[in-house]
């Protein structure tokens, strides 16, 4: 039995490739020919969820103690392969450095975290 989430995944992956221009038309034709039209709403919901999840993961969020230069931000984007910047927030509790989150990984380059780690190392 075919599930709506499997179709949604296929549609989403096809749509990501800009060469595929008729994804929606092909989907409708496929659903009609296989008598799967009742699944359409559920498929679209899955596509929506997938998009929300992926765009949240694929955007670069940055928290900094002091604003980062344009060149540094573009360098970070290049290293991580990020295309868009999601949010940028200032937090002076970091003391210095920055924290960034991209694709489900949090990179902590803040001075406050380094100091905590150094404290733990000295105590132990």
């Amino acid at each position, binding site marked *: 039995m075919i599930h709506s989430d499997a179709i949604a995944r296929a549609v989403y992956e096809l749509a990501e490739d800009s060469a595929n221009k008729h994804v929606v038309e092909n989907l409708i034709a496929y659903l009609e020919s296989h008598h799967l039209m009742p699944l359409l709403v559920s498929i679209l919901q899955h596509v929506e969820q997938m998009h929300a999840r992926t765009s949240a993961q694929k955007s670069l969020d940055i928290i900094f103690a002091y604003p980062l230069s344009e060149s540094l931000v573009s360098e970070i984007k290049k290293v991580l392969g990020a295309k868009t910047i999601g949010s940028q927030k200032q937090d002076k509790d970091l003391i210095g450095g920055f924290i960034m989150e991209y694709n*489900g990984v949090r990179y902590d380059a803040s001075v406050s975290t380094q100091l905590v780690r150094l404290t733990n190392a000295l105590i132990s």
Partner: protein
Amino acid sequence: MSVDTIISNLKEKIQKHSSDIHATEFGIVVSVADGIAKISGLASCQMSEMLDFGNGNYGLATNLEVDYVGIMILGDYTNIKEGDRVTRTKEILSVPVSNDFLGRVVDPLMRPIDGEGDVQTKESRPIEKIAPGVMARQPVDVPMQTGIKAIDALVPVGRGQRELIIGDRQTGKTAVAIDTIINQKGQNVKCVYVAIGQKKSKVMRIAQQLKELGAMEYTTIVLAGASDPAPMNFLAPYAGVTLAEYFMESGDDVLIIYDDLTKHANAYREVSLLLRRPPGREAYPGDVFYLHSRLLERACRVNADHGGGSITALPIIETQAGDISAYIPTNVISITDGQIFLESSLFNKGIRPAINVGNSVSRVGGSAQIKSMKKNAGPLKLQLAQFRELESFAQFSSDLDPETKKTIDHGRKLVEILKQRQSSPVPVAKQVAILYAVNNDYLNDVDNATLPEWESDFYAFLDASKSDLLEKLTKGWSGDEEKALGEAIEEFKKSR
């Protein structure tokens, strides 16, 4: 130490300190219900990895899917909500192990719950471990005395064996297990009692009973109560056997009780259904056999190169209306090395422990019996079988030939002798003595109603004046011991 040395030490430590960027993988809680959470992200998460919710709560990665990770929440899940962050710990779920856990009641994560303070430990071990291989094992040939006459004589258990205790509710399954723990006093055996889905009041009563009888000193109770979430019930036996393995690898003999695996299978079924794994027979997941086989395979006797210890497992299974052909009972029967089958009808007739001798079996324990017990208990099973057959025929006829009458009378005597009060284990030498007495017709002139009194007086007599003979009976069986035992029984009978 001078101030300069301290400063130079600090400088050195600071210089050596790595200032690398700290990368942590995280996921987001998509849904949470009934102790199970679905996490989006965590693409590199490992199976059975501990995941940190950041508020003192941890989860166990159980289902790795394309977009999600299904996790069992260990502990209270009411303060976890959609959108919360979960970070990887990169550690497989481990529990602390130490000899200091003896005498304590702990939860499945080995946190003490008896109010007697924390246990300081230096070592932790993963709860999932591959059982020792063939070459690390040695045969089961040392007895694990339960102190219960019917078991030690008819379904003997050896150290390293897995013997199932199976029966309906209220047939005395837990009592058999607890009596076995009590009988280990002075036997150099450490005990782990794993209570799965049991009422906390019942377990606390057991702990109290063990304490009063001095058995708690060598026992650890791992408790996952009826009100605890299903993941904790699922983990409890694995935590228990991890501690037992620690003892075994130190060269100790260990007895572990799983009370009971029916509730364990039910907890696993609940978790699996919540994780949306496909249900199979009786809605259990497809790997429910593996759930118990990988647990019970960890009970074994290892050779000297691997510590020389053993784990004897007494899993308990509760049946419905005596149906031993249900899914979980047949699974566990096929995994274990025998079963002790307890029956409601025998229990209600006053035959306690209510062991159905016909359906009970021990596949490896026979070679672990001591010589004197083997000699005296040998014909017992056949005699009892003949008695049961003749007893049912005798109901239809009043005229019985002398031979049949003798067999029935002897059978009744045997049944009386095998009865035993709870929490009164009998040392093996005394068991041998009473079996010898009944087999050699010394009890023919004793009324069945007065047999319990005769028996306790006989044990007192042996303790008072024949302690050397009792010692000899544990070591061997020859003409000398037989003659001395016969004379001792005669002497006792004359003294009454």
